[in-house]
Structure formats: C-alpha cells, structure tokens
C-alpha cells in the first residue's frame, strides 16, 4: 500500500482523534499521528501499580499498559520502597517530591521483551553434560514437560526417597509455595539464594543483637560509616540514594571503607581504602580508641550490653598502629574516624558484602557491629534500626516435616546456619560424591549457580552428577546447559508476589501481573502447583493441597485462580488483614501501616496479660542465669518475646542474654563446619587465603547500579551503560606489571585462569584488582554471551564455615598481559 493512499484514508477517517493534533496543524501525517498519540499518550491505557524485581529490591513502580503491552514504567509514590525507609520522611515528603527508580527498573521493558527469552519448554537430546557441550535442545510441549518431571519425582517418592530431590530457588519470589511443595513431597532439601548474598551480615548481627536484618536510618544520621557496603551502587532499594544524599545535604559526614572507590565512596567525604578482609581489625582498633578515650555511651553499655569487660580487655592491644599493619589504613586516620564516629551523634555504622564474603566474615561483621554497640547505635533515629517486619503470613502447613536429614547436613555443620541453606556445601558434596544419601534430581528455579557460585568447575561437576535436572528460567542460562528439561519462567511484570521488610515499619506491597505471561507460560507458582496436582500431594487432612483454596476452602480448577486464593490468604492472615483484591484497590496497591517507624522498642515492657500467658525459660548463659520469655512452651513452637531484665519483663534483644552482646554467646563452645573452635569474641583472624610471591594480588568484585547479579547482562539498554566489566587495576601496580589501559590480560589463581580487559585506574587499592560481578556469560542470551569476565572459576567452592556464606571475595591472583 502506498503511504499517500494510507494518509488520505487516515486524514479522512480520524479527524476527530484529538490528542496532540492541535500542534500538528496540516501535517500530512497529522491524522495518523493523532491516532497513535491517543493510544500511547501518557493518559492512555491503564496504569497498574506493582513492584519491581529487576534486582531483589522490590521498589514500587507503576506500569502503563496499552493494547496488552507495557509501554512505560515510572515510580510509584504510594510505596515507601523507592522514597524513604523512615515513616516520618515518607508521610511528610513523598507527596511533594515523588519516589524514584533505578536504571535497572527503568530498563525492565528490555527484559520483558528480550528477544532471547525462552518461550517453550525444551528437552536435551545430548546425554553428555559439560561446559561448552551442546545440549541439543528439542522443543517439547508443556504437557510433555510436566509428565516427565512428575514421573521422575514420583519415582523418587515411590522408592521412599523423596529426599533425593534437591530444590533451589530465588529468595523473594514465590518461595512459600516451593517450601510447601518440598515439605508435602517429603524433601528437606529446599534452599534459596540468601547464602550467596549476605548471610554473613545476617550471622554477625544475629550474634550481636539477635536480629539479622537491621536497616540503616541514614537520613536522620549525622555520621555514616560504611564498611564494604555500596548502597549507591548496589542500589537494591531505590530510596537508598535519596536518603544518603539528603543526609549529606543536611550536614552528615559519609565515610566509606572499601578497597575499591565504589559508587558510594565517590559520594563520600572520605574514602578509606583498605586491604580486603581486614575490616574487622579496623573496627577493633576503632573500638580500642573509643574505649581508651572513654567515648562510649556509658549508660547504654551499662544497661543494655553483655561482656563489655571481656571485650575491653581483648581490644586493649588492638591499637591503631596494630591495625595499620594489617589494614594499610594509617593509624592517625583510625584515631580520627574513631573519635569522629563516637562523638558525632547520631552516628550509624553498617557493613554488607564487602567484608562479608571472606572466610573471617562473621567475626569481622560482629566487630563492626560492636562499634554500634559502643555508641548505643540501635533503634534510635539516625542509627541502625531494628525494623518491625510484620507483613504477609505464610499459612500453617498441616504436614509432617520430612524425616530425612538434609543432604549435605549443612544445618548441623554450620553453627550459624541460615534457613537458605549452604549452596557451596551442597554442590561440593555433590561433586565429591558425598552427602548423607545419594541425591538424584534437582529443581532449580530462577537461579544460575554456574555463574553465581565460586568454583565454577566444581559446580559443573556437581550438576553433571545428578540424574535429572530441571531448570525454570527466562533464559537458557549457563546452568540450563546442565538441565534435562528447561521450562520458561516469567519476569516480575507477569506474576504475583508479596513484598515487605525493606523499610523500618510494616508495609506490604503487591507485585501483580501487569501483562499476562507473554508466551502463555505458567508463572512459577502455577508450574509448582501443577506438579503438585499431578503428584496428588495432600496434607495430613488428606486435602489436595494444590487444588483447595486455603482462603475459600473450595476446590479451584484454574491454576491462577487457585494461587490467587493461596496468595490472598497470606495478606488476609497477615498484618494488613486484607485480601488480594482489597490490597489491589489500595492506592499504589500497597498497604502502609499508619503507626509508622517506632524507636527504642527494646526498652518497652511486655504487656501484663502477655507475661501472664508466657512461659519463662531459665537459661544458663556464661556465668549468668537468664530468664527468657516465650509466648508458649518451646516444645509447642513457642516464640521468644522478651527477657526479664532488672526484674522487669522487657522486649530487650533476641540474644541469649536479652542484651546486645560483646561476648557472642551463640558461638560459645561451638565448632565451625571445618572443625575449628569458634571464638565467642568478635576477634580478628587473618582470612585463610593470603597473597604470596606467586599470586600477589587480592581479587575482589562488586555491584554497580547498572546491573544486578548474573541476570541483567542481556538487557540491551543496561549494556549501553555498562557493556562489560574490565578488571580494575591500580596505575602503579599496572606500571610494575607492564600493563596499559585496555590491554587484554590473563588473571590466574591456583584454581584457574580467566581472560579480562584491564582498566588502569587510581580508584583501587594497589594490592587489589577487581571487577563488577555478573559478566562473562557463555550461554544466556545473544547480547550477554562473550561479554566481560566471570571470576567464579578462579575460586574454590567454599562457604564461610560459620554462617555458610559463599566466599565470592576470597581469592589471590597474578595478572599478566595476554
């Protein structure tokens, strides 16, 4: 059709189209344009509130949907996640200022419509599995996929070995239904992502304050001290940049301790470059200065802490001069930041994955937490806040816990085991043919262990050792290359999830499908439910679990409708006491508790009626007898609600003593996974793997705002901002090695070697090289393939022996020109 004809036709037929035709006057294209404009204008279609999941951060977003397509995404100002983590700030200022979104969130459409997405289930035809081996994919129908997967599972069950099924999942999406499936099926081997991320931080804080997820109240702080945390680069929650920059604008000082001049260090008043894995030593020397000069919050230390004398004794010789030798941070800098931190109040100190992915991470993190303890820096405005985590409720599953132990015994081996499991231990035992019993099958949902675990070759061996592997992913990932069947997953724009926990007061935000799964594929929860139906999984009441709606009590045939009922029960029985439909109807599809952020909760006395009903357990802790208060007897699943302190029943801290602990009672007398005794003081011990003459450089990695984990490297917009991850090397080190900017280099460790492009810079410690994590894909999508470097191959498959955190940063290398 010639366009002249088309134009004439349009001009004649759509004059009344309105829109922006007022501006176009007699343009030949005017009528056509007006028509397009009307359909795609900012006001067109429907704006659907939901939550992002380009990373794990769950920021509130609004999606404009026209003709069944997402055409725009913008911030959702009804959701605090994306504006502030403090309620006052949110209630007062969000309406005027509006929420924000990160580059990944703005690029969501390029992932939704990524042309490399897997559209249909595939089955391998090549039985040989290995890196670089073509699986010989053949498309199969969904029914074929379900039948074969269910048959494989049934075989395990019929043989009385359901525990031979290992299950791995992402940690914030559709987790509850997968956990329920595993329990009903009879396997204790459900694990998820957290132990690849921040379980070291969780263990450190759990040991010190009995809460694994305190959140930094930056905006009300006057001094922000961060150890290896990069909130302006690892912009997991979109409010982080606002609260950080606003704090600085209000006069707060920002000090960042990091071997790399991270995105956060770039905005800091002071960057303190440090030798990797020595942060604990720096913290101890700061504690030494604070105690030596009597700058601690004496009242808080007296009333609310345990073990101060022993700790003081321990840090007596941990002088700044001692720490300088270990950390390379000048003693005078340590003196100064210690005094500034203790005397500028409120001050907040926090630590994340920088120090948290070395072998000595749990104790290092605990030493850093002790700085907060010395300054009474908990649950006050401008300090580390202990959030109220009320949100959705996972329904009670009426089924026995699986009888078999976990395959890798990781829950027994690791003294501060986290519920997410220890991937490193599981894959290591698989590769070595160990384990409590043979594992036969793995279900891997929205996870890519081949890229996201250290020890790539061991992971490959582990995956290849399994009889049958199923992967659910949106791409044919590196892990998929080891799968027998791969089924297409959904993006966050195509499914439901509840989101909570990222601000300091109860908020529950809805993620909902803004478009139907674009290939007509089931969402992950529907995939799980369908398998549950085919296996006829029932609970103890003989109820068909994946068919009867827990809220309605009625059988529901349609999988989506059944899940909506299951999902709705979680909000109805949770803090909002609202159904899915009721939350959908709230502004921004988010329930926000009007009560807001509460401070000093640990001081609050328990209600007399709660104490009357409570069970008091006398626990011997060190030389003390502590009266711990539980809501019901421990053997009936009692939950700790407080502690008797000075004759009063108070909430306190959920540690053995009910106080903040300098002496970590949860580690007293414990052995770690490698058989070493655990110190119950937040000691500094050098991490195991130190540079030597052969491998003289530390290798680290980090996040930048442009990508997350190993899953955004096929996003064509994000690749324009960060197309690869060159190896950053200090200029002086590079000169010594004869390496120039842009050179191809070989990075070698005693475990393997990798190629990289060098970037010569002033922005990294001279003893350290490093790169942004997530690149180096050799499968995934066409855009990601062959870009940048994956450093997993340079490390062994190892977890921190206390908490089970994957050691992504413990590595020493040599670098030479390729």
């Amino acid at each position: 059709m010639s366009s002249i004809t088309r134009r004439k036709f349009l001009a004649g037929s759509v004059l009344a189209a309105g829109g922006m035709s007022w501006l176009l006057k007699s343009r030949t294209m005017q009528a056509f344009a007006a028509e397009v404009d009307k359909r795609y204008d900012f006001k067109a279609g429907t704006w659907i509130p939901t939550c992002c999941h380009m990373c794990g951060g769950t920021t509130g977003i609004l999606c404009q949907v026209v003709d069944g397509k997402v055409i725009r995404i913008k911030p959702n100002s009804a959701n605090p996640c994306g504006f502030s983590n403090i309620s006052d700030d949110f209630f007062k200022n969000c309406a005027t200022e509006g929420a924000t979104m990160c580059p990944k969130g703005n690029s969501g459409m390029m992932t939704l419509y990524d042309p490399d997405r897997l559209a249909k289930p595939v089955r391998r035809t090549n039985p040989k599995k290995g890196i670089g081996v073509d699986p010989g994919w053949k498309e199969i129908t969904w029914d074929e996929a379900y039948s074969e997967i269910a048959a494989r599972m049934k075989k395990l069950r019929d043989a009385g070995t359901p525990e031979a099924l290992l299950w791995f999942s992402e940690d914030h999406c559709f987790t509850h239904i997968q956990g329920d499936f595993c329990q009903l099926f009879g396997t204790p081997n459900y694990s998820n992502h957290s132990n690849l991320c921040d379980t070291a931080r969780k263990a450190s804080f759990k040991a010190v304050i009995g809460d694994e997820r305190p959140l930094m109240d930056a905006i009300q702080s006057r001094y922000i001290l961060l150890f290896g945390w990069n909130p302006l680069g690892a912009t997991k929650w979109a409010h982080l940049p606002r609260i950080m920059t606003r704090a600085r604008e209000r006069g707060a000082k920002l000090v960042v301790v990091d071997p790399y001049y991270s995105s956060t260090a770039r905005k800091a008043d002071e960057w303190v470059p440090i030798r990797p894995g020595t942060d604990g030593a720096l913290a101890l020397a700061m504690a030494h200065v604070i105690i030596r000069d009597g700058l601690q919050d004496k009242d808080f230390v007296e009333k609310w802490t345990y073990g101060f004398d022993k700790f003081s004794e321990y840090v007596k010789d941990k002088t700044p001069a001692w720490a300088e030798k270990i950390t390379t941070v000048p003693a005078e800098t340590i003196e100064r930041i210690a005094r500034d931190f203790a005397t500028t109040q409120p001050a907040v100190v926090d630590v994340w994955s920088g120090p948290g992915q070395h072998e000595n991470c749990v104790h290092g993190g605990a030493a850093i937490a002790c700085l907060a303890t010395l300054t009474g820096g908990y649950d006050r405005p401008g300090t580390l806040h202990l959030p109220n985590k009320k949100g959705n409720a996972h329904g009670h599953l009426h089924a026995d816990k699986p009888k078999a132990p976990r395959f890798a015994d990781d829950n027994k081996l690791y003294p501060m085991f986290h519920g997410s499991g220890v991937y490193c231990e599981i894959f290591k035992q698989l590769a070595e043919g160990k384990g409590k019993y043979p594992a036969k099958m793995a279900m891997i949902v929205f996870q890519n262990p081949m890229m996201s675990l250290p020890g790539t070759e061991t992971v490959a061996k582990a995956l290849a050792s399994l009889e049958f592997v199923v992967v659910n992913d949106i791409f044919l990932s590196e892990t998929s290359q080891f799968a027998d069947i791969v089924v297409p997953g959904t993006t966050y724009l195509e499914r439901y999830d509840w989101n909570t926990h990222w601000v300091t007061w109860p908020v529950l935000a809805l993620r909902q499908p803004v478009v139907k799964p674009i290939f007509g594929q089931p969402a992950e929860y529907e995939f799980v439910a369908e398998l549950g139906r085919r296996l006829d999984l029932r609970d103890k009441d003989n109820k068909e679990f994946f068919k009867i709606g827990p809220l309605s009590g009625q059988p529901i045939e349609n999988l989506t409708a059944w899940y909506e009922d299951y999902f709705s029960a979680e909000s109805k029985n949770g803090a909002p006491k609202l159904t899915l439909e009721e939350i959908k109807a709230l502004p921004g599809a988010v329930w926000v508790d009007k009560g807001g952020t509460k401070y000093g909760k640990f001081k609050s006395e328990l209600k007399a009626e709660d104490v009357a009903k409570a069970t008091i357990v006398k626990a011997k802790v060190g030389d003390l007898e502590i009266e711990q208060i539980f809501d019901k007897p421990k053997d009936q699943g009692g939950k700790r609600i407080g502690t008797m302190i000075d004759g009063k029943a108070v909430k306190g801290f959920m540690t053995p003593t009910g106080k903040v602990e300098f002496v970590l009672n949860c580690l007293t007398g414990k052995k770690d996974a490698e058989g070493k005794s655990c110190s119950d003081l937040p000691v500094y011990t050098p991490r195991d793997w130190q540079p030597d003459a052969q491998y003289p450089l530390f290798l680290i990695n980090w996040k930048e705002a442009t990508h997350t984990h190993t899953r955004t490297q096929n996003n064509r917009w994000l690749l324009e901002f960060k197309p690869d991850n060159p190896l950053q090397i200090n200029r002086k080190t590079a000169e010594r090695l004869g390496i120039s900017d842009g050179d191809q280099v070989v990075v070698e460790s005693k475990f393997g070697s990798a190629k990289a492009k060098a970037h010569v810079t002033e922005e990294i410690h001279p003893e350290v090289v490093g790169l942004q994590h997530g690149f180096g894909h050799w499968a995934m999508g066409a855009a990601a393939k062959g870009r940048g470097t994956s450093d997993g191959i340079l490390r062994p498959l190892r977890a921190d022996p206390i908490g089970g955190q994957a050691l992504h940063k413990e590595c020493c290398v040599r670098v030479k020109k390729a």
Partner: protein
Amino acid sequence: MDMTRRGFLKGAGVAVAAATATALPGCLQEASAGNGNRRWGMVIDLKRCIACKACGAACRLENKTPPGVAYGVFLDEEKGQFPHAYRLSFFRPCMQCEESSCAKVCPTGATSHRKDGIVGVDYEKCIGCRYCIAACPYGARSFDYGHNYIEAANNPYNAIPSSEYGAEYGLRSKGRSPIGNVRKCTFCLHLQDEKGEYREPTACSRTCMGKAIHFGDLKDPEAKCLVHGEKMQELLARRGHYRLKEELGNEPSVYYLPA
C-alpha cells in the same frame, strides 16, 4: 511515498528541499510552537547526583530511542591520584541553548527554537547533513542510522511507538523519518499539554534517584521545579551555579549546582 520523497530530495538538492519543507506549515518542533511565557530549563544538583545513570535509562524508556541515538547522556571522568581519586560526573541532556550553534548551521531551517526555549528538529526538513552534530559544543545530537535494539519485527517492543513530537514518527521504519535524521533531547516536549505546560516532568527528572535533576520554568521568578516543588530561582541562588562551556556564549538552559 517516503522513499520517493527522499530519493527526490537527494536528486534535487538542498535548496529545493528547504523550499519543499517550508511549504509544510508549523508543527511541534518549529519556531511558532511553544508557550512564549515559559523558558524551560534544568538545574542539576551534582551534590545529589550519584552517577547511577537512571536518567539515561528513563530517557530511553520515554523516547524509545534506538541504539546510537542518545538524548540524555551520562558523562563520567576519573580524576586525581590514589588515594585521592575523585570523579567528574554529570548528566548531559540537550542544553536547549538560547544562542544555539546547531540552529545557526542548519542549512534547511530544520532545527529551530520554539517560543518556550526548546530546540526542536523538524524531521521533514532535516536532510541528515549532520552539520549540527559537528557544530554542537555539547555533543548533544546524534544521527539515526536505522539500528534497532531488537531486530525481530514481530517483537512487541517494536510495536510500541515513541511519543516524541506527538508520536508523529513513533514507529520507525526503513527509509522513513526519523531514520536518516539528526535527533536530540527535546525535554520530552510531548509531555506538554495544549497550553504548553507540562503534564508530567521529563522522564530523567522524574526518575532521578538522588533527586538531583530539577526541571521547570526559568522565566517566571516564582516558578517551581515540577518534580520536587522547590522554586527554580531559589535553587539557582542556593550555592552558586555554572553552565557548561559558558565561555562560548551559547546561553544554555541547563544549570549545574557544584558537587
């Protein structure tokens, strides 16, 4: 047919092209358009900017620009010596200069100032000569070579039109504008209403994580930032400001507050 028009223009030369183009009356990107009581501008607070590049991503999302065509660009330069490293980072939209180098060199009058200060490109007049790209001291212009992020024609993304210039050129196709044209940031002028006021602030300012990009009218002393509500003139008075390459006398409409 478009191909015919292009073929004709190539054969007949610039003068004819200009004449043909002027025969088409004014539109969104021409001098007669825009609200004369406004002069739209930006105040970018570099103390708040965290160099995340969300601005650039939001720009692609709003304008659906193809690869190689970048309206809002983020510039990042490493400076200093270890351990006193520092960065010079800033977001660079089009400066919408009052004395713009681009308009001065445009042989066909395709680039012109609207009454509200925004510099537009009339794709019907633009012959793709790219003088303006060479002339712009800020590198704010790029040429649409016809590349696409996603090649598959049936991909849903390719059915989403850009709203740029009122979506007149929303869906790109071979041999048709804006392919073969020079393109640039227009402060998302398609977000303006009939009166030339913004219904929504520009995509970059709306999304900015550090709340660093303020957008509003620079003419009215009382005008407020459309994103965060501060008075634009107060922001400028806050702690001194500068414009890029001020010495060239281009009089840009984008101001920076120092880091």
